[in-house]
């Protein structure tokens, strides 16, 4: 079991670069600050939780700890994943609890120049703007930086 107890700032300590774990959800390239990520998991057995909010895919066992899985597609109000598609999880910690964000694919860790960073365009759809801190302009692609703590801030609802 990892006993990593680092305080996790929103981005890497270095002001000039941000290190992001890139992932794909519904064909959109996204990134989360590498320090917010605790684990990357492949396909997992997920136990459904009846009566839970729709964003909650269920819970899974990560080395003896119970992790609540949140379906990122549902959280971002995207259509559900096609049936049978293998999904990966990005595990993050919030308030002492572990959460797994279900994504379509986790690709690589990128170190990005802060100069490429821009704030969210005003017109960005609300469901995305709510969870995004900004955009990185990559060659040929745009990368949306996701705010993990806001994605996990579900408990206040209901």
């Amino acid at each position, binding site marked *: *079991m990892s*006993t990593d107890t680092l305080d996790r700032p929103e981005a890497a300590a270095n002001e000039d670069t941000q290190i992001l774990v890139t992932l794909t959800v519904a064909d959109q390239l996204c990134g989360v600050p590498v320090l917010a990520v605790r684990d990357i998991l492949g396909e997992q*057995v997920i*136990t*459904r*939780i*009846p*009566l*839970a*909010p729709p964003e*909650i895919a*269920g*819970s*899974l*066992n990560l*080395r*003896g*700890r*119970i992790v*609540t899985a949140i379906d990122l597609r549902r959280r971002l109000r995207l259509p559900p994943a096609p049936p049978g598609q293998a999904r990966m999880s990005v595990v993050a910690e919030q*308030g002492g*609890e572990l*959460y797994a964000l279900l994504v379509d694919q986790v690709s690589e860790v990128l170190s990005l120049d802060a100069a490429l960073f821009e704030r969210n365009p005003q017109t960005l759809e609300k469901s995305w703007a709510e969870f995004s801190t900004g955009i990185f302009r990559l060659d040929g692609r745009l990368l949306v930086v996701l705010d993990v703590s806001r994605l996990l801030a*579900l*408990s206040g609802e*209901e």
Partner: protein
Amino acid sequence: MDDLLADFLTETNESLTELDVALVTLERTPDDAETLSGIFRLVHTIKGTCGFLGLPRLERVAHAGENVLGKLRDRSLIATPSIVSEVLAAIDRIKAIVAGLGETGAEPAGDDTALIAALNATAAHEAPVARNAAAPAQSAAPLAEPPLEAEPATPAAVTAPAATAPAAAQTIRVTVDVLEDLMTLVSELVLTRNQLLQLARTQDNSAFTVPLQRLSHITSDLQEGVMKTRMQPIGNAWNKLPRLVRDLSHDMGKKIELTMLGAETELDRQVLELIKDPLTHMVRNSGDHGLETPEERRAAGKPETGNIVLNAFHEGGHIILEVSDDGRGLAVERIRSKALANALATEAELAGMTDGQIQRFIFRAGFSTAATVSAVSGRGVGMDVVKTNIEKIGGTIELKSTPGQGTMFTVKIPLTLAIVSALIVEAGKERFAIPQLSVVELVRAQRGAGRVAGDGAGHSVIERINDTPVLRLRNRLLPLVSLTELLALGAEDNADSAAHVVVAQVGQHMMGIIVDRVFDTEEIVVKPVAPILRHVTMFSGNTILGDGSVIMILDPNGIARATGVGAGSESRLMRASLIDTQTSADKTAMLLFRAGETQRIGVPLGLVARLEDIPRDKIELSCGAPVTQYRGKLMPLIAIDGAINQERPKQPLLVFSEGDRIMGLMVDEIIDVVEDRLDIELAGVRPGLLGTAVIGGQATDVLDTGYWLMQAWEDWFRGVPRQGSALGQRHVLLVDDSEFFRQLTVPTLGAAGFRVTAVSSAAEALRLRDAGTKFDAIVSDIEMPEMDGLHFARIVRAGGPWAGLPLIAMTAHADMENARMGREAGFTDYVAKFEREALVASLRTSLAEMVSA
């Protein structure tokens, strides 16, 4: 060294370290109420503990320090550096004394008068004075100097002994985090072991088999050991209390007896640690404020010795701790005026509050009704700390107090972290765990939409009364809930497939949970659910099974609440209130049907043994009255409107039974089963109906079961029809072991204007008495198992709050000889079972005599 003292030293050293930090914070931010309260509590705890350990010097210093801190907390003093220095000096003195204690086991000699005088001088200055008189405050400083000078010396003196004292102890303190991590690691180890065993099974004669077996054993032992480190009997938290109570009774000149029940109840050590202090506070409060002096008790007609009872038990996945006393109860008036004086509520708000709500003010910070501040308690730290600490671990605290009878605090702590045995079930392709504690039995049943005709013994069939599933279980109808439907699992219950019914007990109620499959039982470690899921009350936690899968733990209480079974019992304040669920004002499951010209008639579901649909041609005539052959016997049939509807091929019946007597009531149609309050608002004028009540939002006639039973069996009660009229709400306790008679008597007496609480045994009745419940009269059966009515009457008459109540016996043998024995035992009157008119008349006469006497 005494165990108590060793514990005290370890705790105090920890508190002192915290205090140093907190005081420095306070100096920087003198307005921080939270820091101040924290400091105050720490000092208060030190003072409280050394009070009963017999450490007078330490207690005096702490008391003086607390006085100053109290003023700071109340804002009548402002935390200036000089005041903080004084408090620091007091704390240094405490440290020095504690260090001495650690070395020698006794308080070192020393003179604290100067320090105490300085502290008291500071405390004596109220805020307005302190502002203008900065100089006098300064002039007090020289007085405080001697301890200040001593300051550089003390820290050195403290650290050395503080380090050696705990080292001498046989135990070490380990943070719960370390144990938690250990537990997680062991869980992982178990999972890995299971996987290895799985692999080994597929290979014959593997060289790994033997070492693997050993690994498996060691893993099991290790798991058990780690679990053991976390579980402790609650008695461990109680072992200081007898001493505390003894000293308390000594100091206060009271006679107190402490009874501790359920000391072996095991509980997670983390939880145990956290409830230790609140418990001590509560017991101290009970002894100090709750119980009266022997003189007062004698004047109130109570035995001189007051009782404090501690009771711990598991209930529905929780641990319940009750602290009760038979003292004077909470003075609602004083709490009300205090709340008003402290501006906690306005007069108008208070006027709208029930006594219970007003009593809850004692849980507010800084609230104390004790007129004088004693060394024992009375600073109003107690109850708000208690509440805060209990809520910190997700528990709740309730209180119930009756003036003159005593007070009972009920603490409910969730079983989080605790290990329970659970039944693993499957519904809608998902597996769930049900805590074994609440499971009574398992019944295999057929999900039959189509009733199996003539189905006798063998399979139970789940039947439906207008979509409400019920199961016939040993002559009773058991309300059922389908887990698949309740949890919206989507998969439709496959009609006609086999199902299992988990019969669960929730408080006083039984309920069946329909599941698809039942696996075995497993020991599970309850883990709290993620905060996101806390609102789903159907789950009490989740856990990881041996095969590594995550599984949700069902909370039978939550399910009962969600479905309305035993509604109203969620407050579960105390035993008495659980028993109270039979009170006529509480909700009752009512079977609604249609018969004759009356549109809706209701009958308590508990009275109905069975529902039947018999073919018309099975109804025969015997001496002109309709009967049917039922289970090898002739069952008399009664039609409510007197006429038998000949047109329909089937006749719905409500079957009532008691002992070997049965009867069938012919009705037109069964409508529904609803949970509602049974308040009969209009007493009936028609024979056969008790009156009219609003059930499920509609006026419904309530069946007078007794009348119809008598129609079928004239000698059923050897009685005559009732005649009701209104009477002031007198509270009557009914003691009868026969569920049937209770169900019958409660509505009858209710209709006659009495409020009725029914219990099933004399022991239960006496528990109510000891819990302080008040009644105006008692009606008791004579023949009862364990303690019979005569014995019960003698106990009631022997003393206690009920000694003077009218006591009416109810028996099937109402002859002269029995009546004489009854009177000798202390019964006021003797009534044949069940002459309602006589019973009602007897109750009225006895109550009238009471009033005139």
